[in-house]
């Protein structure tokens, strides 16, 4: 019997959902509001040398990759399953577009983190 691949996508959806539920509000606040406005946090926090050092550290690399990849896999799975609700018939093409773009985003994140160096 062919094994279902559903648990893999469900697992990525769940992991991304949990990670975003715990950290996404504060992450959006830090990167999109606090640092750009210099509100509660210094603008220097995300200066080039500081972020380069952060992204070169294995912990920083892991965190950035986990956030980008798990967020996009969570979103792709949820959007794919919502297509039916908005009256779009799903099939292999919709599956490929949803999960394929998540795979592409993950690959680009991995590549950029690799290119940043160690």
């Amino acid at each position, binding site marked *: 019997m062919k094994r279902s691949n559903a648990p893999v996508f469900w697992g990525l959806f*769940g992991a*991304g*959902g*949990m990670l*975003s*539920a*715990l*950290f*996404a*509000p*504060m*992450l*959006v*606040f*830090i*990167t*999109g*509001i606090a*640092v*750009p*406005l210099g509100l509660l*946090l*210094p603008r*220097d*926090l*995300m200066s*080039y040398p*500081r*972020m*380069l050092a*952060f*992204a070169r550290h294995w912990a920083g690399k892991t965190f*950035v990759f986990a*956030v*980008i990849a798990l*967020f*996009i896999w*969570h*979103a*792709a799975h*949820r*959007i794919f*399953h*919502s297509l039916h*609700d908005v*009256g779009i018939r799903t099939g292999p093409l919709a599956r490929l577009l949803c999960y394929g773009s998540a795979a592409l*985003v993950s690959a*680009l*994140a991995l*590549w*950029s*983190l690799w*290119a*940043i160096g160690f």
Partner: protein
Amino acid sequence: MSGRRPYVRSMSGWWRRDPFFVRYMIREATALIVALYALVLLAGALCLSAGEGAWNGWLAMLRSPVSIAVHVLMLAAMIYHTYSWFEIMPKTMPAVFVGGRRLAATTITMLGLAAAVAATVALFVVVRMLGP
């Protein structure tokens, strides 16, 4: 060809008929915001790998009034995402038994929301300590 034209009730706008479905659709729509934020961060990572000029361009983009407004809206959506994630967690996770009694749905939701508040505070404190 038969002349039958059976009545089929239209499904358009089905979710607007019931507040429960409206909340369901808003919860599902938060996925679009999670995807958008992942793309914002991906752009940042790509700019960081492209050098200082590209990175400063990304930072300048984040300082634009449009970006600030979009991030305020994204923040609201993310807070709703957090709330709805733990609201449905009693239905998405296996039943938990403590001392022979099943853990109540509201207890699971409250524990989840408490964890989210703790994670939020912890992340801010860590970032503040790492800062200049």
